């Protein structure tokens, strides 16, 4: 689905992404892990068109999509969420979701004046869909609350919810799990699996919770210092010495000193 070829992204002299090459297979749920500052988010930003690469290419099903604008990629079915929630803070949760689908009739100025009937129909459908998503995310009681007033975790849920409003082909999830309650995260995991199996979405997700990764992802790609360090199944990764040293660590040292 996506192929990244020796991608570079530098900030001044700093090489945040330093020649990463990787492939995301169609229909897979690929995990992307790595220490803080490995360049994962930067890689996402480049793929999703939010940052131009310093060099290298990104291909989507063979088509060169390097440097396309985010909105163009959206219409190609490439969606992403943000690590730091980017909600539309002065709009209600419902509106946050309803604005997502592209190609709404009512987004044309002319139509907004002269095709009120058609817009009303579309809106009704959107509203239903948005309420379903909110229900699923367990925040339906907040549908009219301004998104800016949500709790940290709720914002991340909303972020995820936006990707559920449209038919996507590939979704990039940047730490959806961070700050989300584990019980709810399991439900979200189920949903991701369902979307993947039933609707054929491809996922690529950055996550630090190895349990969650282990439940969903195959393969897992490990990044470090802007490059791909290892790739393989979760088990392989967990056993990889280099990965343990750079990323996983060996657990708490002082644990026995408390309690």
């Amino acid at each position: 689905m996506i192929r990244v070829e020796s991608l570079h992204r530098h900030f001044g002299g700093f090489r945040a992404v330093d020649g990463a090459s990787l492939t995301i297979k169609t229909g897979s749920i690929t995990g992307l892990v790595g220490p803080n500052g490995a360049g994962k988010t930067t890689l996402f930003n480049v793929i999703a068109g939010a940052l131009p690469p310093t060099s290298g290419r990104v291909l989507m099903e063979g088509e060169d999509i390097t440097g396309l604008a985010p909105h163009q990629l959206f219409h190609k079915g490439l969606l992403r969420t943000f690590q730091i929630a980017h909600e539309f803070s002065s709009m209600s949760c419902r509106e946050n979701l309803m604005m997502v689908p592209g190609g709404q009739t009512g987004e044309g100025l002319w139509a907004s004046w002269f095709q009120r009937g058609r817009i009303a129909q579309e809106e009704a459908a959107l509203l239903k869909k948005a309420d379903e998503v909110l229900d699923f995310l367990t925040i339906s009681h907040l549908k009219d609350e301004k998104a800016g007033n949500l709790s940290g975790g709720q914002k991340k849920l909303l972020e995820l919810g936006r990707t559920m409003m449209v038919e996507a082909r590939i979704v990039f999830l940047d730490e959806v799990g961070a700050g989300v309650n584990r019980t709810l995260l399991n439900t979200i995991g189920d949903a991701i699996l369902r979307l993947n199996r039933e609707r054929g979405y491809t996922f690529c997700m950055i996550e630090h919770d190895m349990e969650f990764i282990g439940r969903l992802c195959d393969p897992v790609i490990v990044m470090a210092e802007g490059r791909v360090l290892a790739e393989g199944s979760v088990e392989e990764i967990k056993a990889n010495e280099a990965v343990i040293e750079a990323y996983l660590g060996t657990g708490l040292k002082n644990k026995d000193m408390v309690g």
Partner: protein
Amino acid sequence: MTENATMPAATPSAPAPFLIGEAMTGGYGRGADILQGCTIAVERGEIAVIVGPNGAGKSTAMKALFGMLTLRTGRVVLDGEDITTLSPQARVAKGMGFVPQTRNIFPSMTVEENLEMGAFLRRDDLRATMEQIYGLFPILRDKRRQAAGELSGGQRQQVAVGRALMTKPSVLMLDEPTAGVSPIVMDELFDRIIEVSRTGIPILMVEQNARQALEIADKGYVLVQGGNAFTGTGQDLLADPQVRRSFLGG
């Protein structure tokens, strides 16, 4: 509110806890009450962990303890002194340190300046503490001249915790300190938190990585819809099947 499995921690006979927010009720501005009579307390040398679903009011409870929203009822007591009406700054002066969940760094200042700001009220030499923090989060040493806003998500989180540690607080409150940090750093962080608490400083934290957090916790609170749903030792809560199922992800 769900059933109250255990009594709130503060029992009249025991010595009063170092920091306690008692029966706090209140919300943001003129909105509805978010907190509904919730009680949170932490003793000297203890780690208390708050868990609960998203939007339960965990962050709100922390802010309430810190005086960042006005309580309609209830009170906050620090070391025997009622501080319910003190301003947040005054509470900082009294030695409370806090890492908020969001917006917890100074984005346009360098990492080092962020740490310095943490020690704003300190007049002694900061270098030793700063070294300790660089030792804890080595990446920050490399990035110390970089603007904190340019860091990765996990790096920012490390800056935020580092800033609070710089205060040399007498009580430390952390709102999801491990959100977005890699496992190895998370372990380091928990290690450090244990170390800090062993020096006698009470630590109160909100965590979604609840399993790991409760393992090192002396006391755990489960908050649901602004009220205490369960309270117990960390191990108690981990062992409670209902708590596991509904809040810890099975």
